[in-house]
């Protein structure tokens, strides 16, 4: 935080960011195989409810985080964009898996080469599919980003 920012609003910002990180509610945007690993993070072994991200809201108007899990076909892209537009601010996007990040192993007419062609992405998770541990790590990185006010570039480091 800049030392020139006033004290009270800085503290309020920090409080707001803390509140946001502690309860990120993802939206169910399960498209393909990555969706199964995304469902696994709610399962008891890789429990995300201990991080506050337990409730998967189906309605975009009640969720904070869109985890694009799976390959994005050309037919699905406008729908994805509409859902993103329907989410209220502040909102974040995790692009889960190789297909959502770059098109993955499918380099053809049907698949969007990366969901960042239509949405701004905050965290990219590599893998085909990434294991649930990797997705939880991505959520942790996102929390760091949010805590830093969304202005810091948080680079993933080896733990």
């Amino acid at each position, binding site marked *: 935080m800049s030392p020139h920012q006033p004290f009270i609003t800085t503290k309020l910002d920090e409080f707001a960011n803390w509140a946001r990180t502690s309860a990120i509610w993802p939206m169910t945007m399960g498209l393909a195989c990555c969706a199964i690993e995304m469902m696994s993070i709610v399962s008891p072994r890789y429990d995300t409810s201990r991080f506050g991200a337990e409730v998967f809201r189906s309605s975009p108007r009640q969720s904070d985080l869109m985890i694009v899990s799976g390959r994005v076909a*050309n*037919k699905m*892209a406008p729908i994805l964009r509409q859902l993103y537009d329907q989410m209220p601010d502040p909102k974040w996007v995790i692009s889960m898996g190789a297909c959502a990040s770059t098109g993955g192993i499918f*380099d*053809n*007419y*049907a698949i*969007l*080469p*990366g969901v*960042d*062609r*239509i*949405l*701004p992405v905050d965290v990219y998770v590599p893998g085909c599919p990434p294991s649930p541990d990797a997705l939880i790590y991505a959520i942790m990185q996102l929390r760091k980003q949010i805590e830093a006010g969304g202005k810091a570039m948080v680079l993933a480091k080896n733990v």
Partner: protein
Amino acid sequence: MSETLHSHPNRAGLASVLERLRDALGENLLEAASADDMDEAAILPAGLHPAVNVLRAAGFNLLADIGATDHLPLTPRFEISYHFIAIDETSKLVIDPPRYRLRVFPDDVNPVVPTLCGVWLSANWPEREIYDLFGVHFDGHPNLTRILMPDDWQGHPLRKDYPLRGPDRRFAAGGRLGSVPPVNPT
């Protein structure tokens, strides 16, 4: 190939099917063969309905699949393959059900095949898919529209002369971020 396929008992009964197909189709029957996996017949589109009636009468009640192959640069180019299985509903355990394959070869430039929609319940979607991906028209289909590709897509992707990456990439330039350069089509 394994011995069991050629000697399996149900194949013997299929000789009568071939006779009936010859009678019903006449010149629409191009060739019939006993391939390694099942018996098959290559026919022209005009012979499709008579052939299906013959097969239905012979007990083939499950239309397993309608698929298409593009044999460009060979002619005839399009092959629409119909796979049938004869399942005995009342049997305690279905073993070695007879199988049959019909291969329909429509015209290269204007491929038209009569639809099986009024005749067989499971034909609706596969025919739409073949129209979508190969451009083969099914005469008489109630709703012959694209099913897998977006509705405004141009071209038929699974044809051999359609490039793998398509003519251009959608959402390439002018996307919200625009930081990813468009891919050169092959």
